[in-house]
């Protein structure tokens, strides 16, 4: 995808220059620099992909020497973007006409049933149906759709 974007950038260059014929001296100099940065960035990401492949091969050899250590590099993600992606989906559940939904139902819908689909199936539902009402009392007490009424 990055590669494509770079190619696009390159292709756009002559076109951009041709319809802007006033002062392209300073512009083209600048663009050269930009291009090299873009290319460098692309190179980096290509390298990363290669590194990922080789580490999987090396992993088996390294596993012995690093046993007991935490592989921090792979666990720590650089961005908290998964939250943003979640909020994008949340928007479609918390629609303007569903504002009265209780937070606990909202969480249940979004949390287990949508985002964590791999953690439940029909047998989970079967077990859930056998749960007695008093086991759920706390949830049921909180599950009140008039939650937001006083705020609106």
């Amino acid at each position, binding site marked *: 995808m990055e590669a494509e974007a770079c190619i696009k*950038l390159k292709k756009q260059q002559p076109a951009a220059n041709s319809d802007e014929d006033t002062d392209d001296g300073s*512009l083209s100099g600048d663009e050269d620099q930009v291009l090299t940065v873009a290319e460098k960035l692309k190179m980096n990401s290509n390298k990363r992909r290669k590194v990922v492949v080789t580490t999987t091969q090396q992993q088996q050899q390294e596993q012995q020497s690093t046993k007991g*250590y935490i592989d*921090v590099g792979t666990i720590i993600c650089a961005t*908290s973007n998964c939250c943003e992606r979640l909020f994008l989906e949340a928007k479609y559940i918390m629609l303007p006409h569903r504002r009265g939904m209780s937070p606990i139902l909202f969480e249940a819908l979004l949390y*287990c049933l949508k985002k964590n689909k791999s953690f439940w*199936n029909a047998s989970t539902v079967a077990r*859930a149906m056998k749960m007695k009402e008093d086991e*759920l009392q706390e949830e049921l007490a909180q599950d009140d759709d008039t939650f*937001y009424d006083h705020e609106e």
Partner: protein
Amino acid sequence: MSPTSTSSVPGKAIADFFFTPVQDDNGKQKSWQCKKCGTEKLSQKEGYTNLRCHASACVGKSYESDLLEHLKKVGCFVDKKGNILSEDRKPKALVQQAINSFVTTSNTELRAFTWIRWLACRNMPLSEIENDITRDLAKAYRPFSIKTIRKYILATSNLVVDAIAQELERAGFLTLLLDGWTADGASTHYIAIFAGYKHPDSGNYSEVLLAMQPTLDEDGAMDAAAHEELLDSTIAMYKLTKANILCIIGDNCNTNKCLARQWGIPLVGCASHRFNLAVKHWMEDQPGLMDAIKKLSTLMSTKACNLRAAHTLRHLTLHAYGKELRAQQMNETRWTSIFTMVERYFRIKEQLEKIKALLPYCLSVTENLRVRDAFEHLAVFKLITVEIQAKGMDLGHCRKQFDTLLECESYQVMSDYLHPRAEIVDFADFESGILKIMAGALEKHSVQWKLKLASS
């Protein structure tokens, strides 16, 4: 037929009736899957005790009489060898269909599962289940009342917690990713907490949603203490302790920094948040750029969206590109919206200039040049933004991309945000430590980190 008279129905019939065979990659049968709940059960060569036990637990103790009753209803019988046959010699596929109708019509669990899945995954309001048109459509799945399905949804989500807790226990160490969200118009601030961990089976980086809750504080405070309380209760719910948590990943705001210090767990500032700020800073640093953008924004967001102007614009673009284009509006919080706005501007520039009413708002030649010049730079920033947002992006690669950018003379101003020791980074030592470990100085550092982790 009384439920206690066991083995009156041959095991083979039980297996065929309640289970579907599951085959392995070589086409050899490896196990049986329950048609009702989806659980896989192994069976011994000729014995069906395992399957009988499951059927009695899943369908109920009267599973044998249920079976016979159903077969009688659909005109089938069991022969001495345990084959299920049709009385009027229907083909096998039809017999199978008749058998399966037992599971689809009389099976409350499967019905509940199907309804919940539909409601949750298709974002349906719960009232939909009591809607006549929906009920008409789903005749095979007799619906529940809203109150019942609601109870089942909450109960299921309770059980999912246990399933996730088991997986996290096996994973051992994890990171917490958090961010806040307010739905437009609803005055509740939600905090989403994800866990990032190495999947115990596949070894890949995985993320799982732990909670999406309003802050617990009764006064509605959203300070670090309220966050702390929420995190504490969340990790307790999954039977985790602070020792399991390597670090928190969130925006570089003061609340998060304070939370990390109070909690004693390092914070890794979200790189994409940092980059967003850096780009904004860079744009403000360009002479005259923000003014030009502001003017462009007035043109694109208000003037060109005026009904008459928009109508003319649609006409002109349809003529030029074969499809109707409209002006893209920009939003304040993200610079990427400026990028899309500028991109669209250059596409419809000619057409915009043809509209007489918009002439006083069009950009001057110098302003145009400034925007065009900046556009090339923004395209580079866009590359990085898209790339670092990938799932499981590691710190090392992010650092490398930032360094590449900083090498360039024209992006020096961004170092206020992108430099590894920039003021915005609160736990710079932690981050540089991780980077060193990733670069290969593994053994020495991880020993130290283990010690630090143990002490925290």
